[in-house]
């Protein structure tokens, strides 16, 4: 029988050769490198250029959320989980989209809806009210083109509507 001293170590530390650095044109003993000076600016220009597509895209995403929500409300129990997962994913995409272009109020509601859906199975009427509150305020934020938290009283009011619904019906 092997003693514990003779046994193979249970932990192995593997130092891989840094092939990426070589591929990028660096040497293995070189210090940290950088990307070419204009590349970050060019990448941010890509984001800036795509921002003109935001209004159309967010409209499509809110329509998709509406449709998915209607489907959940009328679905059989056995189908619900998959549809709920899809809707939480769409809410997450609304958050991604809005956050990318600085629409922080819409980003807030997208994250709030996603997190709420992930915590529930959306089988109770009380839960319906909370989801509906999110969908309603997102519609208002879109129609009123409210971009960020300093969107003023209306933005605050919309946030309050959602938090009140969550408090009252959770």
């Amino acid at each position, binding site marked *: 029988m092997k003693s514990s001293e003779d046994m193979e170590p249970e932990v192995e530390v593997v130092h*891989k050769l840094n092939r990426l650095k070589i591929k990028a*044109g660096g040497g293995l003993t070189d210090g940290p490198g950088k990307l070419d000076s204009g590349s970050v600016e060019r990448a941010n220009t890509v984001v800036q250029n795509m921002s003109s597509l935001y209004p159309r895209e967010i409209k499509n995403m809110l329509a998709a959320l509406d449709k998915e929500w209607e489907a959940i409300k009328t679905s059989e129990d056995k189908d619900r989980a998959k549809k709920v997962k899809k809707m939480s994913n769409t809410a997450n995409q609304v958050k991604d989209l809005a956050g990318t272009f600085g629409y922080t109020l819409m980003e807030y509601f997208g994250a709030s809806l996603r997190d709420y859906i992930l915590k529930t199975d959306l089988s109770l009427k009380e839960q319906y009210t909370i989801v509906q509150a999110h969908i309603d305020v997102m519609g208002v934020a879109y129609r009123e083109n409210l971009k960020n938290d300093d969107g003023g009283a209306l933005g605050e009011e919309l946030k309050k509507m959602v938090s009140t619904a969550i408090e009252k019906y959770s």
Partner: protein
Amino acid sequence: MSTIRQSSSTNTYSLKNFSVLLVEDYEFLQQLITGMLRAFGVGNIIVCSGADEAKGLLSVMASSKSADMRMVDIVLTDWMMTEGSGEDLIKWIRNHANDRVKFLPTILVSAFTSEDIVKIARDIGANEALVKPVSGEKLAKRILSVIDLPRPYIKSPEYFGPDRRRKELPWKKEERRIMTPEKMKVTHEKL
């Protein structure tokens, strides 16, 4: 010819020979991130819409002997997707039998809060985590980190992935590690 050079000046990297796999289910963000990677000069960008598709592609790449089907260099994956999650994909990569897949550098991209996602990313074996929204600065930083700050991989009964400790700091509390560095097997891949 030797690829080992020494230089005191900062290298400007070229990513034209890099192949990046982007796994993202939202088409709009696929376009956005692809555009940003192109702005960095990445030569080849492959897009999959979910972990399931990415696994299939990586399996084919790992088993292919064709020069046209070379393995990707970096995987950039979203976290929340309907057709297989980023967590699922990274766990699959780290458990893969083929080392070309198992050791792939992975960057987890997520819209969840930074504290949560950094901890999860670390524990499932991601090399880097990027919290959305994605910006040029953030994406460049993570890619440069994968190139310049690779951590050794740890193989243990409970974990496989990059060393979860980025810095060796003095530990003032009770030592919970049962294995001393001397008892670990250390291997260095040779050129």
